[in-house]
């Protein structure tokens, strides 16, 4: 227990990094996932094919491989660089990996949401002269998103936990920090473990409750 108290600043910083990873990746995954969903329902076959291929490839690849690909492939081989600081660079590379991976799931959730919007809604929008993009942006996606708030919450919870995979390329989020602390406090492995486990619950449980509440509040009444 004393170890947890002594190391509180380190643990706090590690979870703050976990939160930042989650927020940045979650936001980018939402944007990319929405674009992918739009591609998958677009009238252009080439866009549909690209969207489908992306989802099938990325969703079926283990996240660890995606993250390692971002770290090694993008970082070392292709020399993609966001910062001269090595740790900031790997942070961004891991955000790219997490976003790219999560976007595939966001896309599928939104596509399921689009299927809940009655055909008549889009027809009425076309009938008043909205273009395909206006129809998607003003009528279909707002209703689709509101019907998939709960599944998006589940994806966000999965993302919070998935940020631990960023440890694979040395990003010092919570799980990597836990491992480091195990080594420094060999006599307090169990308390440290439970400390981290509880801290994750503190992040994930309220997220679940928030999204359940939001999904009820935002539901479209038909």
């Amino acid at each position, binding site marked *: 227990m004393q170890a947890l108290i002594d190391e509180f600043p380190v643990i706090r910083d590690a979870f703050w990094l976990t939160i930042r990873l989650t927020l940045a990746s979650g936001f980018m995954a939402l944007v990319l996932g929405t674009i992918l969903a739009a591609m998958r329902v677009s009238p252009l076959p080439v866009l549909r094919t690209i969207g489908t291929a992306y989802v099938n490839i990325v969703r079926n690849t283990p996240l660890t491989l995606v993250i390692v690909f971002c770290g090694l492939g993008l970082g070392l081989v292709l020399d993609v660089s966001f910062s001269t600081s090595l740790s900031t660079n790997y942070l961004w590379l891991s955000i790219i990996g997490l976003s790219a991976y999560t976007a595939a799931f966001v896309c599928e959730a939104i596509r399921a949401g689009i299927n809940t919007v009655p055909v008549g809604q889009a027809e*009425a929008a076309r009938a*008043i*002269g*909205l*273009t395909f993009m*206006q129809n998607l942006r003003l009528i279909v996606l707002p*209703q689709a998103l509101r019907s998939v708030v709960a599944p998006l919450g589940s994806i966000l919870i999965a993302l919070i936990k998935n940020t631990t995979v960023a440890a694979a390329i040395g990003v010092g989020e919570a799980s990597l920090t836990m491992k480091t602390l195990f080594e420094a406090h060999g006599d307090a492995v169990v308390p440290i473990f439970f400390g981290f486990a509880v801290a994750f619950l503190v992040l994930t449980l309220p997220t679940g409750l928030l999204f359940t509440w939001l999904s009820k509040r935002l539901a479209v009444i038909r």
Partner: protein
Amino acid sequence: MTENGDATPLVVLKDVNKHFGSLHVLRDINLTISRGEVVVVIGPSGSGKSTLCRAINRLETIDGGTITFDGQPLAAEGKALARLRSEVGMVFQSFNLFAHKTILENVTLGPIKVRGVARAEAERRGMELLERVGIGAQASKYPAQLSGGQQQRVAIARALAMDPKMILFDEPTSALDPEMVQEVLDVMVRLASEGMTMVVVTHEMGFARRAADRVVFMADGQIVEENAPDEFFTAPRTDRAKDFLSKILTH
């Protein structure tokens, strides 16, 4: 029938054909709709009358023939098609009001996003139209909070908000409880008397008699007979029409 001072027809369908798979739903349809004319399309279900109505604003594509609107062939897609649709109002059987928008937003969305009308002006005009169909007091509610008849009157106001050159009605009263049919028909009769060009697919024979300039009777994807309502209902010329009328008018 030349209220707009223009004698050219508004809609011309020429040799229009359409298949759903092996089903031939529109067979060599030829139909001309004049400006200000009210055309009622009737016929048994599956006769292709809804498909005909939806083909006019290209919610259904056609396999053969041509449809011209206001002198121009229907655009296949894109901006030109969107522009055409903004000039043709449509009222659906199931209302299709935007479920996540208020009643007023339903009516102002088109003018603001398609026509670029300023919000304040669109809302002023939207309220005016809602008052006209008797829904002014419900402007801030959502569609699900309104009765079917009220929703359908909002749908008519939404179509009118675009100042369309014509309005298509695809079985506008078929999904309504019986006591709500009249309030919607009243609005439609008023529109007809004000000179709106209308194509109405309906089973409401009373409306056809009262407001139609012409009745088009369809069966098996073909136009079997067309005539002024009085002549059609009292002296149908074809056996198919006699048979249909005997089934619906006897009770």
